[in-house]
Protein backbone atom coordinates (compact mmCIF):
# COMPACT_ATOMS: atom_id res chain seq x y z
CA UNK A 1 0.00 0.00 0.00
CA UNK A 2 1.42 3.40 -0.99
CA UNK A 3 1.47 6.35 1.36
CA UNK A 4 -1.30 8.06 -0.62
CA UNK A 5 -3.48 4.98 -0.61
CA UNK A 6 -2.98 4.70 3.14
CA UNK A 7 -3.77 8.37 3.65
CA UNK A 8 -7.05 8.00 1.76
CA UNK A 9 -8.09 5.18 4.08
CA UNK A 10 -6.95 6.67 7.39
CA UNK A 11 -10.22 8.33 8.34
CA UNK A 12 -12.26 5.24 7.60
CA UNK A 13 -9.71 3.13 9.47
CA UNK A 14 -9.99 5.20 12.64
CA UNK A 15 -13.76 4.68 12.57
CA UNK A 16 -13.31 0.90 12.04
CA UNK A 17 -15.04 1.31 8.68
CA UNK A 18 -12.62 -0.61 6.43
CA UNK A 19 -12.53 -4.25 5.42
CA UNK A 20 -10.26 -6.68 7.27
CA UNK A 21 -7.80 -6.80 4.35
CA UNK A 22 -7.59 -3.01 4.11
CA UNK A 23 -7.07 -2.78 7.85
CA UNK A 24 -4.13 -5.19 7.76
CA UNK A 25 -2.51 -3.50 4.74
CA UNK A 26 -2.93 -0.08 6.35
CA UNK A 27 -1.47 -1.18 9.67
CA UNK A 28 1.56 -2.58 7.86
CA UNK A 29 2.15 0.84 6.26
CA UNK A 30 1.39 2.92 9.37
CA UNK A 31 3.79 0.98 11.58
CA UNK A 32 6.65 2.48 9.57
CA UNK A 33 5.21 5.91 8.77
CA UNK A 34 5.51 8.67 11.35
CA UNK A 35 3.33 10.99 9.28
CA UNK A 36 0.41 8.55 9.21
CA UNK A 37 0.90 7.75 12.91
CA UNK A 38 0.50 11.41 13.78
CA UNK A 39 -2.63 11.79 11.66
CA UNK A 40 -4.05 8.61 13.15
CA UNK A 41 -3.46 9.85 16.70
CA UNK A 42 -5.17 13.17 15.92
CA UNK A 43 -8.20 11.40 14.38
CA UNK A 44 -8.47 9.16 17.44
CA UNK A 45 -8.69 12.14 19.78
CA UNK A 46 -11.54 13.54 17.70
CA UNK A 47 -13.37 10.22 17.79
CA UNK A 48 -12.96 10.22 21.59
CA UNK A 49 -14.48 13.70 21.79
CA UNK A 50 -17.50 12.52 19.80
CA UNK A 51 -17.94 9.59 22.19
CA UNK A 52 -17.69 11.80 25.28
CA UNK A 53 -21.22 13.02 24.67
CA UNK A 54 -22.51 9.47 25.00
CA UNK A 55 -20.99 9.08 28.46
CA UNK A 56 -23.47 7.55 30.84
CA UNK A 57 -23.68 5.94 34.24
CA UNK A 58 -22.34 2.39 34.27
CA UNK A 59 -24.13 -0.26 36.35
CA UNK A 60 -22.06 -1.00 39.49
CA UNK A 61 -21.90 -4.70 38.61
CA UNK A 62 -19.59 -3.96 35.67
CA UNK A 63 -16.84 -2.68 37.96
CA UNK A 64 -17.48 -5.52 40.37
CA UNK A 65 -16.92 -8.01 37.57
CA UNK A 66 -13.77 -6.19 36.40
CA UNK A 67 -12.44 -6.20 39.96
CA UNK A 68 -13.34 -9.84 40.48
CA UNK A 69 -11.58 -10.97 37.32
CA UNK A 70 -8.47 -8.84 37.79
CA UNK A 71 -7.66 -8.46 41.49
CA UNK A 72 -8.30 -12.09 42.32
CA UNK A 73 -6.00 -13.34 39.62
CA UNK A 74 -3.20 -13.35 42.19
CA UNK A 75 -1.26 -10.87 40.12
CA UNK A 76 -1.48 -8.04 42.60
CA UNK A 77 0.78 -9.22 45.39
CA UNK A 78 2.85 -6.54 47.06
CA UNK A 79 4.62 -4.58 44.35
CA UNK A 80 6.85 -1.53 44.44
CA UNK A 81 4.97 1.78 44.43
CA UNK A 82 4.20 3.19 40.99
CA UNK A 83 6.77 5.57 39.58
CA UNK A 84 4.97 8.75 38.65
CA UNK A 85 6.99 9.44 35.52
CA UNK A 86 5.89 9.05 31.91
CA UNK A 87 7.38 5.95 30.39
CA UNK A 88 7.21 4.81 26.83
CA UNK A 89 5.23 1.64 26.29
CA UNK A 90 8.37 -0.40 25.73
CA UNK A 91 9.50 0.65 29.21
CA UNK A 92 6.06 -0.26 30.53
CA UNK A 93 6.39 -3.70 29.04
CA UNK A 94 9.83 -4.11 30.57
CA UNK A 95 8.67 -2.95 34.01
CA UNK A 96 5.93 -5.51 33.86
CA UNK A 97 8.20 -8.31 32.70
CA UNK A 98 10.48 -7.55 35.66
CA UNK A 99 7.57 -7.79 38.07
CA UNK A 100 6.52 -11.10 36.54
CA UNK A 101 10.08 -12.42 36.59
CA UNK A 102 10.43 -11.48 40.25
CA UNK A 103 7.24 -13.30 41.07
CA UNK A 104 8.32 -16.38 39.12
CA UNK A 105 11.70 -16.39 40.89
CA UNK A 106 9.99 -16.01 44.25
CA UNK A 107 7.79 -19.01 43.54
CA UNK A 108 10.69 -21.14 42.35
CA UNK A 109 12.93 -20.26 45.30
CA UNK A 110 10.03 -20.73 47.63
CA UNK A 111 10.22 -24.50 47.26
CA UNK A 112 13.38 -24.74 49.32
CA UNK A 113 13.88 -21.34 50.86
CA UNK A 114 12.54 -19.09 53.51
CA UNK A 115 9.47 -18.32 51.41
CA UNK A 116 8.41 -21.95 51.69
CA UNK A 117 8.59 -21.78 55.45
CA UNK A 118 6.54 -18.60 55.39
CA UNK A 119 4.01 -20.24 53.10
CA UNK A 120 3.65 -23.20 55.44
CA UNK A 121 3.15 -20.92 58.43
CA UNK A 122 0.52 -18.98 56.50
CA UNK A 123 -1.25 -22.14 55.43
CA UNK A 124 -1.39 -23.42 58.98
CA UNK A 125 -2.65 -20.09 60.29
CA UNK A 126 -5.37 -20.11 57.65
CA UNK A 127 -6.06 -23.76 58.35
CA UNK A 128 -6.64 -23.03 62.00
CA UNK A 129 -8.78 -20.07 61.13
CA UNK A 130 -11.00 -22.12 58.86
CA UNK A 131 -11.28 -24.82 61.51
CA UNK A 132 -12.30 -22.33 64.13
CA UNK A 133 -14.92 -20.56 62.08
CA UNK A 134 -17.85 -22.48 63.49
CA UNK A 135 -16.89 -21.85 67.09
CA UNK A 136 -16.22 -18.24 66.18
CA UNK A 137 -19.80 -17.88 65.07
CA UNK A 138 -20.96 -19.11 68.46
CA UNK A 139 -18.77 -16.58 70.28
CA UNK A 140 -19.94 -13.83 67.93
CA UNK A 141 -23.50 -14.71 68.81
CA UNK A 142 -22.65 -14.20 72.46
CA UNK A 143 -20.98 -10.87 71.70
CA UNK A 144 -24.01 -9.45 69.95
CA UNK A 145 -26.19 -10.72 72.81
CA UNK A 146 -28.72 -12.59 70.74
CA UNK A 147 -29.97 -16.14 71.03
CA UNK A 148 -29.68 -16.90 67.33
CA UNK A 149 -28.21 -15.50 64.16
CA UNK A 150 -31.67 -14.76 62.84
CA UNK A 151 -32.57 -12.74 65.92
CA UNK A 152 -29.26 -10.86 65.84
CA UNK A 153 -29.80 -10.05 62.17
CA UNK A 154 -33.25 -8.69 62.93
CA UNK A 155 -31.81 -6.52 65.71
CA UNK A 156 -29.05 -5.24 63.41
CA UNK A 157 -31.47 -4.43 60.60
CA UNK A 158 -33.53 -2.38 63.06
CA UNK A 159 -30.55 -0.16 63.91
CA UNK A 160 -28.07 1.76 61.74
CA UNK A 161 -26.69 -0.53 59.08
CA UNK A 162 -25.56 -0.80 55.47
CA UNK A 163 -27.14 -3.29 53.10
CA UNK A 164 -24.74 -4.86 50.62
CA UNK A 165 -26.13 -6.63 47.57
CA UNK A 166 -23.89 -9.33 46.13
CA UNK A 167 -24.39 -9.56 42.37
CA UNK A 168 -23.82 -12.68 40.29
CA UNK A 169 -22.02 -12.63 36.94
CA UNK A 170 -25.28 -12.04 35.08
CA UNK A 171 -25.99 -9.01 37.24
CA UNK A 172 -28.78 -10.62 39.25
CA UNK A 173 -28.79 -10.25 43.02
CA UNK A 174 -27.33 -13.41 44.49
CA UNK A 175 -27.35 -12.49 48.16
CA UNK A 176 -27.96 -9.72 50.66
CA UNK A 177 -25.73 -8.90 53.59
CA UNK A 178 -26.47 -6.43 56.40
CA UNK A 179 -23.45 -4.78 58.00
CA UNK A 180 -23.78 -3.00 61.34
CA UNK A 181 -21.37 -0.18 62.23
CA UNK A 182 -19.31 -2.32 64.63
CA UNK A 183 -18.53 -4.72 61.80
CA UNK A 184 -20.98 -7.45 62.73
CA UNK A 185 -22.40 -8.62 59.46
CA UNK A 186 -25.33 -10.88 58.62
CA UNK A 187 -25.93 -12.98 55.57
CA UNK A 188 -29.69 -12.63 55.46
CA UNK A 189 -30.92 -13.92 52.12
CA UNK A 190 -29.67 -15.60 48.99
CA UNK A 191 -30.87 -16.93 45.69
CA UNK A 192 -27.86 -19.25 45.35
CA UNK A 193 -28.65 -22.94 45.01
CA UNK A 194 -28.02 -25.56 47.67
CA UNK A 195 -24.64 -27.33 47.38
CA UNK A 196 -23.96 -31.05 47.93
CA UNK A 197 -22.97 -31.85 51.55
CA UNK A 198 -19.33 -32.19 50.48
CA UNK A 199 -19.17 -28.48 49.70
CA UNK A 200 -19.76 -25.19 51.45
CA UNK A 201 -20.27 -21.60 50.48
CA UNK A 202 -17.41 -19.50 51.79
CA UNK A 203 -17.55 -15.77 52.27
CA UNK A 204 -14.53 -13.57 51.58
CA UNK A 205 -13.68 -9.97 52.27
CA UNK A 206 -11.30 -8.12 49.99
CA UNK A 207 -8.78 -6.36 52.25
CA UNK A 208 -6.06 -4.34 50.52
CA UNK A 209 -6.68 -6.31 47.36
CA UNK A 210 -6.41 -9.72 48.99
CA UNK A 211 -9.25 -12.11 49.77
CA UNK A 212 -9.55 -12.87 53.48
CA UNK A 213 -11.87 -15.62 54.66
CA UNK A 214 -14.82 -14.29 56.64
CA UNK A 215 -16.51 -17.59 57.30
CA UNK A 216 -18.28 -20.67 56.03
CA UNK A 217 -21.97 -20.52 55.24
CA UNK A 218 -22.52 -24.25 54.84
CA UNK A 219 -24.14 -25.85 51.80
CA UNK A 220 -27.50 -24.15 52.25
CA UNK A 221 -27.15 -20.41 51.54
CA UNK A 222 -30.70 -19.67 52.64
CA UNK A 223 -29.59 -20.08 56.23
CA UNK A 224 -28.66 -16.84 57.96
CA UNK A 225 -24.99 -16.39 58.78
CA UNK A 226 -23.11 -14.12 61.14
CA UNK A 227 -19.57 -12.93 60.59
CA UNK A 228 -17.28 -10.03 61.37
CA UNK A 229 -16.00 -7.50 58.83
CA UNK A 230 -12.85 -5.43 59.42
CA UNK A 231 -12.61 -1.73 58.69
CA UNK A 232 -10.44 -2.05 55.57
CA UNK A 233 -12.76 -4.47 53.78
CA UNK A 234 -13.72 -3.13 50.36
CA UNK A 235 -15.68 -6.02 48.89
CA UNK A 236 -17.61 -9.10 49.91
CA UNK A 237 -17.42 -12.17 47.72
CA UNK A 238 -18.68 -15.73 47.85
CA UNK A 239 -17.28 -18.95 46.38
CA UNK A 240 -18.18 -22.63 46.64
CA UNK A 241 -15.39 -24.62 48.35
CA UNK A 242 -14.81 -28.14 49.68
CA UNK A 243 -16.68 -28.73 52.96
CA UNK A 244 -13.88 -27.63 55.31
CA UNK A 245 -13.39 -24.33 53.52
CA UNK A 246 -10.18 -23.13 51.87
CA UNK A 247 -7.45 -20.71 53.01
CA UNK A 248 -7.85 -18.75 49.77
CA UNK A 249 -10.48 -18.97 47.01
CA UNK A 250 -10.00 -22.03 44.80
CA UNK A 251 -13.02 -21.55 42.53
CA UNK A 252 -14.60 -18.75 40.56
CA UNK A 253 -16.25 -15.94 42.49
CA UNK A 254 -20.00 -16.53 42.36
CA UNK A 255 -21.09 -13.10 43.52
CA UNK A 256 -19.50 -9.81 44.52
CA UNK A 257 -20.70 -6.74 46.38
CA UNK A 258 -19.02 -3.47 47.34
CA UNK A 259 -18.82 -2.41 50.96
CA UNK A 260 -18.93 1.38 51.32
CA UNK A 261 -15.83 2.57 53.18
CA UNK A 262 -18.10 4.24 55.74
CA UNK A 263 -19.92 0.99 56.54
CA UNK A 264 -17.68 -0.08 59.40
CA UNK A 265 -16.56 2.23 62.20
CA UNK A 266 -13.41 1.51 64.18
CA UNK A 267 -13.55 -2.18 64.94
Amino acid at each position, binding site marked *: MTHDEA*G*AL*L*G*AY*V*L*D*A*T*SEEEREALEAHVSGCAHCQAEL*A*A*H*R*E*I*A*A*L*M*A*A*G*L*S*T*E*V*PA*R*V*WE*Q*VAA*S*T*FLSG*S*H*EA*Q*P*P*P*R*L*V*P*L*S*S*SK*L*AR*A*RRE*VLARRARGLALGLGGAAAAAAIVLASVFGTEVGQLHSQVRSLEQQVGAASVAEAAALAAAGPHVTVALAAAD*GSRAATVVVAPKGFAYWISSSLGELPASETYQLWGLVE*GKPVSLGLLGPDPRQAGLFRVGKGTSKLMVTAEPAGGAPSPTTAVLAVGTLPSSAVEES
Partner: protein
Amino acid sequence: MKGDLASASDAALAVGVARWREEALAEVYRRNAGAVFGLARRLLVDEALAEEVTQEVFVGFWEHPERYDPARGSLRAFLLAVTHGRAVDLLRSELSRRAREQRARAVAGPDFEQEIVELMANEQVRQALNRLPPAERSAIELAYFGGHTYREVATIQNEPEGTVKSRIRSGLRRLESELAHLVQGADR
Protein backbone atom coordinates in the same frame (compact mmCIF):
# COMPACT_ATOMS: atom_id res chain seq x y z
CA MET B 1 -2.52 8.15 47.47
CA LYS B 2 -6.06 8.96 46.39
CA GLY B 3 -5.21 12.63 45.78
CA ASP B 4 -2.17 11.64 43.73
CA LEU B 5 -4.21 9.33 41.57
CA ALA B 6 -6.99 11.81 40.86
CA SER B 7 -4.43 14.13 39.26
CA ALA B 8 -2.12 11.45 37.87
CA SER B 9 -1.26 11.63 34.18
CA ASP B 10 -2.36 8.93 31.75
CA ALA B 11 1.22 7.69 31.55
CA ALA B 12 1.47 7.47 35.34
CA LEU B 13 -1.77 5.52 35.55
CA ALA B 14 -0.54 3.12 32.87
CA VAL B 15 2.65 2.58 34.85
CA GLY B 16 0.55 1.95 37.96
CA VAL B 17 -1.52 -0.64 36.14
CA ALA B 18 1.65 -2.22 34.73
CA ARG B 19 2.76 -2.67 38.34
CA TRP B 20 -0.53 -4.34 39.20
CA ARG B 21 -1.79 -1.39 41.25
CA GLU B 22 -5.50 -1.98 41.42
CA GLU B 23 -6.20 1.57 42.56
CA ALA B 24 -4.62 2.82 39.31
CA LEU B 25 -7.04 0.65 37.34
CA ALA B 26 -9.89 1.94 39.49
CA GLU B 27 -8.93 5.52 38.61
CA VAL B 28 -8.70 4.69 34.88
CA TYR B 29 -12.16 3.15 35.18
CA ARG B 30 -13.54 6.12 37.10
CA ARG B 31 -12.37 8.51 34.39
CA ASN B 32 -13.37 6.52 31.34
CA ALA B 33 -15.96 3.83 32.01
CA GLY B 34 -18.93 6.13 31.38
CA ALA B 35 -17.75 6.98 27.85
CA VAL B 36 -16.67 3.39 27.12
CA PHE B 37 -20.04 2.02 28.19
CA GLY B 38 -21.97 4.81 26.45
CA LEU B 39 -20.19 4.21 23.14
CA ALA B 40 -20.58 0.42 23.36
CA ARG B 41 -24.27 0.79 24.13
CA ARG B 42 -24.81 3.23 21.27
CA LEU B 43 -23.28 0.76 18.82
CA LEU B 44 -24.68 -2.48 20.21
CA VAL B 45 -27.98 -1.23 21.67
CA ASP B 46 -28.06 -4.41 23.76
CA GLU B 47 -27.24 -3.29 27.31
CA ALA B 48 -25.83 -6.64 28.41
CA LEU B 49 -23.47 -6.83 25.43
CA ALA B 50 -22.32 -3.29 26.14
CA GLU B 51 -21.55 -4.26 29.74
CA GLU B 52 -19.52 -7.22 28.48
CA VAL B 53 -17.53 -5.02 26.13
CA THR B 54 -16.87 -2.49 28.91
CA GLN B 55 -15.64 -5.27 31.16
CA GLU B 56 -13.40 -6.64 28.38
CA VAL B 57 -11.90 -3.23 27.69
CA PHE B 58 -10.78 -2.69 31.29
CA VAL B 59 -9.72 -6.28 31.97
CA GLY B 60 -7.79 -6.10 28.68
CA PHE B 61 -6.04 -2.92 29.80
CA TRP B 62 -5.16 -4.57 33.13
CA GLU B 63 -3.61 -7.48 31.28
CA HIS B 64 -1.88 -5.50 28.51
CA PRO B 65 -1.18 -1.92 29.61
CA GLU B 66 1.84 -1.90 27.30
CA ARG B 67 -0.51 -1.70 24.30
CA TYR B 68 -1.15 1.90 25.27
CA ASP B 69 1.63 4.22 24.18
CA PRO B 70 1.37 7.57 26.01
CA ALA B 71 3.42 9.19 23.25
CA ARG B 72 0.56 8.50 20.80
CA GLY B 73 -2.29 10.26 22.54
CA SER B 74 -4.62 10.16 25.51
CA LEU B 75 -5.56 7.03 27.37
CA ARG B 76 -9.20 7.88 26.81
CA ALA B 77 -8.75 7.96 23.02
CA PHE B 78 -6.95 4.62 23.23
CA LEU B 79 -9.62 2.95 25.38
CA LEU B 80 -12.43 4.29 23.20
CA ALA B 81 -10.66 3.07 20.05
CA VAL B 82 -10.44 -0.40 21.63
CA THR B 83 -14.11 -0.17 22.62
CA HIS B 84 -15.20 0.87 19.13
CA GLY B 85 -13.19 -1.89 17.48
CA ARG B 86 -14.55 -4.56 19.81
CA ALA B 87 -18.16 -3.37 19.50
CA VAL B 88 -17.93 -3.25 15.71
CA ASP B 89 -16.43 -6.77 15.66
CA LEU B 90 -19.43 -7.98 17.63
CA LEU B 91 -21.83 -6.16 15.35
CA ARG B 92 -20.30 -7.76 12.28
CA SER B 93 -20.07 -11.25 13.73
CA GLU B 94 -22.76 -13.82 13.14
CA LEU B 95 -23.09 -14.38 16.87
CA SER B 96 -24.64 -11.03 17.56
CA ARG B 97 -27.73 -11.44 15.42
CA ARG B 98 -29.84 -10.46 18.39
CA ALA B 99 -27.99 -7.17 18.79
CA ARG B 100 -28.24 -6.39 15.11
CA GLU B 101 -31.94 -7.04 15.03
CA GLN B 102 -32.49 -4.74 17.99
CA ARG B 103 -30.22 -2.22 16.42
CA ALA B 104 -31.98 -2.34 13.06
CA ARG B 105 -35.15 -1.33 14.85
CA ALA B 106 -33.40 1.51 16.69
CA VAL B 107 -31.63 2.76 13.57
CA ALA B 108 -34.82 2.67 11.56
CA GLY B 109 -36.21 5.47 13.72
CA PRO B 110 -36.98 8.65 11.76
CA ASP B 111 -34.27 10.83 13.20
CA PHE B 112 -31.41 8.66 14.31
CA GLU B 113 -28.76 11.22 13.46
CA GLN B 114 -30.55 14.03 15.22
CA GLU B 115 -30.93 11.85 18.29
CA ILE B 116 -27.19 11.32 18.37
CA VAL B 117 -26.43 14.97 18.05
CA GLU B 118 -28.79 15.75 20.90
CA LEU B 119 -27.00 13.24 23.04
CA MET B 120 -23.79 15.13 22.60
CA ALA B 121 -23.31 16.69 25.97
CA ASN B 122 -20.36 18.63 24.74
CA GLU B 123 -21.82 21.72 23.13
CA GLN B 124 -18.69 22.59 21.20
CA VAL B 125 -18.38 19.15 19.68
CA ARG B 126 -22.02 19.29 18.74
CA GLN B 127 -21.64 22.68 17.10
CA ALA B 128 -18.50 21.63 15.24
CA LEU B 129 -20.33 18.58 13.87
CA ASN B 130 -23.26 20.74 12.84
CA ARG B 131 -20.97 23.08 10.93
CA LEU B 132 -19.58 20.23 8.81
CA PRO B 133 -20.92 19.85 5.30
CA PRO B 134 -23.97 17.59 5.85
CA ALA B 135 -22.59 14.75 3.71
CA GLU B 136 -19.35 14.68 5.72
CA ARG B 137 -21.17 14.75 9.04
CA SER B 138 -23.49 11.99 7.98
CA ALA B 139 -20.63 9.80 6.69
CA ILE B 140 -18.74 10.14 9.98
CA GLU B 141 -21.81 9.46 12.08
CA LEU B 142 -22.91 6.45 10.06
CA ALA B 143 -19.45 4.94 10.45
CA TYR B 144 -18.67 5.88 14.04
CA PHE B 145 -22.07 5.66 15.74
CA GLY B 146 -23.70 3.27 13.30
CA GLY B 147 -20.77 0.89 12.93
CA HIS B 148 -21.06 0.90 9.11
CA THR B 149 -18.13 0.28 6.77
CA TYR B 150 -17.35 3.02 4.27
CA ARG B 151 -18.71 0.71 1.55
CA GLU B 152 -22.03 0.51 3.37
CA VAL B 153 -22.00 4.27 3.83
CA ALA B 154 -21.41 4.63 0.08
CA THR B 155 -24.49 2.52 -0.58
CA ILE B 156 -26.55 4.49 1.94
CA GLN B 157 -25.39 7.84 0.53
CA ASN B 158 -25.51 6.55 -3.06
CA GLU B 159 -22.03 7.90 -3.76
CA PRO B 160 -18.78 6.32 -5.01
CA GLU B 161 -16.68 4.66 -2.30
CA GLY B 162 -13.76 7.00 -2.94
CA THR B 163 -15.98 10.00 -2.26
CA VAL B 164 -17.06 8.56 1.08
CA LYS B 165 -13.47 7.81 2.14
CA SER B 166 -12.39 11.37 1.45
CA ARG B 167 -15.52 12.78 3.12
CA ILE B 168 -14.68 10.92 6.32
CA ARG B 169 -11.08 12.06 6.26
CA SER B 170 -11.77 15.70 5.43
CA GLY B 171 -14.58 15.82 8.01
CA LEU B 172 -12.27 14.52 10.71
CA ARG B 173 -9.61 17.05 9.71
CA ARG B 174 -12.11 19.88 9.86
CA LEU B 175 -13.17 18.76 13.34
CA GLU B 176 -9.53 18.61 14.37
CA SER B 177 -8.88 22.21 13.44
CA GLU B 178 -12.05 23.36 15.20
CA LEU B 179 -11.60 21.28 18.32
CA ALA B 180 -7.82 21.32 18.74
CA HIS B 181 -8.20 23.21 22.04
CA LEU B 182 -10.31 20.38 23.51
CA VAL B 183 -7.80 17.65 22.84
CA GLN B 184 -5.81 16.86 25.93
CA GLY B 185 -2.06 16.77 25.49
CA ALA B 186 -0.41 13.40 25.57
CA ASP B 187 1.63 14.49 28.61
CA ARG B 188 -1.20 15.96 30.60
